[in-house]
């Protein structure tokens, strides 16, 4: 299964997508992700911060940039440069 990640917001407001195989998650990343999947979303961190939507097996978590724990930050850093842009419909 795939973990689908959307990053929206930021000053630019560009909505980007990336995915990673579920099997590539470290145990720490998996545990952190599981926590977010089972809790309600928090209000926005503040203006122009990024917002992540992380989807796995039909469940999804909305994660504000400033609540990302170090275990998930490592996953997002691996995605840097892998964000899908331009979106397929505009290519």
């Amino acid at each position, binding site marked *: 299964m795939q973990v689908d990640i959307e990053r*929206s917001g930021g000053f630019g*407001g560009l909505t980007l997508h990336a995915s990673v195989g579920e099997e590539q998650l470290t145990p720490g990343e998996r545990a952190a992700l599981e926590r977010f999947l089972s809790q309600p979303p928090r209000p*926005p961190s503040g203006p122009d*911060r990024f917002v992540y*939507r992380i989807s796995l097996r039909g469940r999804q978590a909305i994660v504000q940039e400033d609540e990302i724990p170090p275990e998930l930050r490592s996953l997002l850093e691996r995605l840097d*440069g892998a964000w899908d842009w331009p979106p397929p419909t505009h290519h």
Partner: protein
Amino acid sequence: MSPCFIVPPELLERILRLGQAADREAALATLSIDHSIRTNRIQNAFLAAIPRRRHHLVHGGRGRPHRTIFDAHHRTDVHATTVLRAEGQPPCSDEDANHAYDGLGDTYRFFWEALSRDSIDDAGLPLLGEVHFGRNYDNAFWDGERMMFGDGDGRLFKIGGFVRALDVIGHELCHGVTQSTLNLLYTGQPGALNESISDVFGSLVKQYRRGQTAADSDWLIGEDLLGPAVRGVALRSLRAPGTAFEGDLQPAHMRDYRVTSSDNGGVHLNSGIPNHAFYLAATALGGYAWEKAGRIWYHTLVVGAVPPDAHFHTFAQATLRTAGVLFGVASEEWRAVAEAWVRVGVLSAAQLG
């Protein structure tokens, strides 16, 4: 017809001319909620009070920014302590820090000279910025206390682009102004208003710096910021929302309002609607956009008769009240603002009466 005042106009005029800042703002709020006010006399008193206020404050050492630029050393978890350049110091060896310093200065100068506002809180709040926030970080933001500038990744956003874009700096500083005035929620319509206010004043900071009239301005936000992977001229266009880059989905009219759960409810998308209303009002009035449309928007912020959960129409009605107080109900300025909100579908002609 003789207008009916709850507070005698002579008293309001005295407050506007001689009162303390807080009294003047209260008088201003009274004026703005009193729909019956139409006399030239009280409007003139109001207008006369605004330049007076600036002179009143200068002797307190105000009118000068107090800037500190820090090096975040690519960290994101704590506020930086390494100072790259403090107020009054000559340029340092970090060009990004110098650009941030200059941009904050230009933004401060716009709010002070054009709108008599003394920094973010109108009480001379020091302006703190951090450069080199995060690694390859594609963003700039106001964290409630400081302005944070990423370096950009060189693909979506140019390296060093955020600190070099004056409208980005104006946009971020204006988030602080909105936080200390209307404190709009950052989701859905109030969030899109919050975004639009930052785009409007970000554009005005740039127009003021360049000495451009509404007709001369490009009305773009974030030009020269896009990296090679993004095809376009800028991130947003107030003149033609939805055309700034390939994939720009901003609407310019309420019929195209986007319902989405991304981006806190599309705050950077639906801001196109109030952005375009400002553009229409400013270009209809001509001249320097900060002198009429900008003042109307600004005084709508500081009077504060807009709740944190305001939708577009609530803000639109408030700008009309402000235009009525500043320039007269049914004045050219009032009509330009009314027409602008009607053209973007936020108000209907019937609502204007």
